[in-house]
């Protein structure tokens, strides 16, 4: 079958990440290894034939074969995310097709350029697939994730990222809290700006490949600032989540 045919995936696990974010593990009858950063389309069908489709980034690395993990943020009044949060249990079937998208991807070969990842909120999901892929393959390419969240409880994958940074001196995790920081926090407490991006760039070898994913405002600022700092536009890849979510 073509990987763009719909297939019936089975939900094998549901893991809460934050109060508004859950990760769904889906076993696929026909698994195609994806590139880190690609997404799947998910389709719901109601009695009477009404259908709703959304796209969700794959959070798991391609090395995790036979299944994918989709991390879904609950959108206010979200037709699809609302059903996934309230109506779906382990053992249920979901129609998906993929992997899709050939642009916002990190092939992650040995000798790749240093990796600068900037994620806002649930924009971290495709970046997490890149980091997990890097870890699973054992790539040592220097990598830095700047994760921008409103409050500590909005930091998806926080424990796993901290553990990754502890275990791997070539990976740096930098957090910025825009609304409320943890007690005693000495790090960033603002939206990304030119000084912050200059500081994170200084912690990587020169000429990184940059992946920026999050709400439009963050992506605009970060991509424009990185370009103004002298990086070529081709080294800056962006994926924007509109306020309506994905």
């Amino acid at each position, binding site marked *: *079958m*073509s990987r*763009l*045919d*719909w*297939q*019936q995936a089975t939900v094998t696990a549901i893991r809460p990440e934050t109060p508004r974010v859950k990760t769904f593990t889906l076993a696929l009858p026909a698994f195609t290894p994806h590139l880190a950063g690609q997404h799947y389309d998910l*389709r*719901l*069908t*109601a*009695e009477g*034939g*009404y*259908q*709703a*489709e*959304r*796209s969700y980034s794959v959070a798991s690395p391609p090395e995790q074969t036979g299944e994918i993990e989709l991390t879904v943020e609950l959108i206010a*009044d979200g*037709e699809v995310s*609302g*059903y996934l949060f309230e*109506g*779906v249990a382990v053992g*249920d*079937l*979901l*129609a998906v097709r993929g992997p*899709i*998208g*050939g*642009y*916002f991807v990190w092939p992650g070969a040995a000798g790749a350029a240093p990796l600068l990842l900037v994620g806002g909120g649930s924009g971290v999901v495709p970046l997490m697939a890149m980091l997990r892929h890097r870890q699973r393959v054992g790539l040592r390419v220097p990598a830095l994730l700047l994760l921008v969240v409103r409050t500590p409880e909005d930091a998806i994958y926080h424990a796993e990222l901290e553990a990754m940074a502890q275990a791997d001196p070539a990976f740096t995790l930098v957090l910025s809290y825009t609304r409320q920081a943890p007690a005693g926090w000495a790090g960033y407490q603002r939206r990304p700006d030119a000084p912050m991006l200059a500081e994170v760039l200084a912690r990587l070898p020169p000429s990184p490949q940059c992946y920026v994913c999050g709400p*439009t405002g963050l*992506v*605009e600022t970060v*991509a*424009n600032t*990185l*370009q103004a700092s002298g990086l070529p*536009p*081709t080294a*800056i*890849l*962006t*994926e*924007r*989540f*509109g*306020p*309506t979510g*994905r």
Partner: protein
Amino acid sequence: MADFFVNKGFRPRRQSNPQLPPGQYETTDFPVLTAGPTPRIALSQWEFRLEGLVEEPVKWSWDEFNKLPMQDFNPDIHCVTKWSKFNTRWRGVSVDTLLEHVRLKPEAQFVTEFSYGGYTTNLPLADLRGGKGFVGLQFEGEPLAPEHGGPARLVVPHLYFWKSAKWVQGLRFTAQDEPGFWERAGYSMRGDPWKEQRYLDDDEDAGTGAIRL
């Protein structure tokens, strides 16, 4: 493969709307989707060109372009990432008006829209003629913002919106349908939302194409 099975308990939260193509939902926002940084083009440097299979290429400066006859249009727009936005308010120049300034060679059947920043997208010439394609300069009564493709973008509302190149610099007329940026990555050559032609596999002649993602 069973294409249709019912997700137990799933009910539409939105009214079904005959204006909405399959798989789309309505939004009142104007989400931004771009693959890289937003290009900034100084109006003094801006130009718009018609080239390729024409007897004489033509180009306009910003001032010249703004003197062309303009019209208002209020399309529904449909993005391949599933959102649709109804009754948007634009002002710009019809592609029909631009085509009065060139003589097309008879073999010109397709168009590549090309943009500042390097974006391209392809479509049949017929999809730009007869009041179907515009160069939009104003959105909701204001100059078009850079993140939405300003100073000027193509607006081809009857196709998915990636066929409406932001930061457009010109149209190149070709004899063959030459895949653009997203099309080379596996997206549809035509992109008709009513036929849900999102990907190459959805095209009516799918299976003959050499490109697989």
